[in-house]
């Protein structure tokens, strides 16, 4: 304590003590707010949301577009691969591939819808990578499909736009940043040897992001400069969710 403040030491001490009490009370209040949904208009939720947006930017800065996700041997594949969605497995949709069309919208030059055969005729790539769920568990799987970057170029997507969004047949939705969309391991999967419940006829496989950023049963892809959010993202999960 400085000489100047010394005469006021007892008062300062009392003040400090009061501040400590106040601090412990507000700590108690914070733990009371544990049921926050991140949508309430209170200051703690606003702070947590602001930190989540900060974490979006931090993760975008950490993202190296040339850095490949580790790949694994065939013997390491998890079988059966866990089914996961915002609903139980019996409710997974069965999409009629013959009548299905991939719709395109937003900042894309050629918005003609795609049939599944035409997507399957595009250059194919395969990967065995780790799928990491936001819940913590992980599983190693094999995915085959066309690299998303090549597809985006082919349809004349504005690659300087910020976001790529997805709408799905199961009313799911999600969106990713353009840099991650252009990553060489990001695939449009059209092959479902494990069964249609894993997202047939079309799903996204993006091993640089958490599982919920890998939408299944895709019906529409759009390119935008406004963050489209998504099913889980709008409920408070971190938007970028990169690995």
């Amino acid at each position: 304590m400085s000489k100047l403040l010394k005469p006021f030491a007892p008062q300062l001490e009392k003040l400090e003590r009061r501040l400590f009490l106040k601090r412990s009370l507000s700590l108690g209040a914070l733990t009371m707010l544990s049921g926050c949904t991140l949508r309430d208009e209170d200051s703690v939720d606003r702070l947590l949301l602001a930190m989540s947006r900060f974490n979006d930017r931090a993760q975008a800065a950490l993202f190296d577009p040339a850095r490949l996700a580790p790949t694994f041997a065939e013997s390491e594949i998890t079988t059966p691969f866990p089914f996961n969605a915002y609903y139980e497995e019996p409710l997974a949709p069965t999409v009629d591939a013959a009548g299905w069309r991939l719709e395109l919208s937003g900042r894309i030059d050629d918005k003609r819808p795609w049939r599944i055969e035409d997507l399957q005729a595009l250059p194919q790539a395969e990967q065995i990578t780790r799928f990491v769920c936001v819940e913590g568990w992980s599983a190693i799987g094999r995915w085959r499909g066309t690299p998303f970057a090549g597809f985006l170029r082919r349809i004349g997507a504005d690659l300087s736009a910020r976001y790529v969004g997805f709408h799905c047949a199961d009313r799911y939705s999600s969106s990713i940043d353009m840099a991650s969309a252009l990553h060489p391991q990001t695939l449009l999967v059209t092959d479902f040897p494990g069964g249609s419940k894993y997202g047939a006829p079309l799903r996204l496989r993006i091993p640089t992001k958490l599982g919920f950023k890998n939408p299944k049963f895709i019906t529409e892809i759009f390119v935008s400069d406004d963050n489209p959010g998504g099913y889980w993202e709008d409920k408070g999960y971190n938007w970028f969710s990169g690995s």
Partner: protein
Amino acid sequence: MTTTGSEPQDAAPPSPELSPGAHSVFVRLAHWVNAFAILVMILSGWRIYDADPFLGFSIPRDFTLGGWLAGALAWHFAAMWLLVANGLAYLVYALASGHWRDLAPTGGLWRDLAAALAGMLDHVPGRYNAVQRWLYLFAMGCIILAVVSGVAIWKPVQFQELTSVLGGYEGARRWHFAAMTGLVAFLIVHVAAALSAPHVLKAMIRGRAGQTP
């Protein structure tokens, strides 16, 4: 907190700079910021663990923070910056000020441990016995392991070498849990010791050393 301590209330207390065993303002601030950050990390971490309880048991919801997985993750990934920023500031301070010498592990651990277990070990604020020094080193080791394994879980692609060193993604999860377990074990001893020697707790709040009872 009682408002009537053993110190005289009207007389000016000795200034902390002159008092042996005082904690500097920085050390006190860093301690309580760290305590808050660690508490948030542990309680929200327990809720995150519950989303996939890979060790076969769950933590009761009442002892977790965040309400549901998204809330717990939001707390966890907000408080991690506070924990890391505060921890780095503390390390820089400890090295620059020479405070690290007060905490550097010394001999006499078994003698002090025996005394501590017999309830005969004195706690003098700011002067650390061998048991404390080793315990604080252990706690810091746990925090560093928690941060490093946490980064490995968070970024298993961008920091894949780190994740690999920790036995891959699933290995890193187990290291992260082990670091938390170590910290909780430390906290049980640390809080029990602080409560059994209230003058030490007061010193960490007010900075001055109280009289040893």
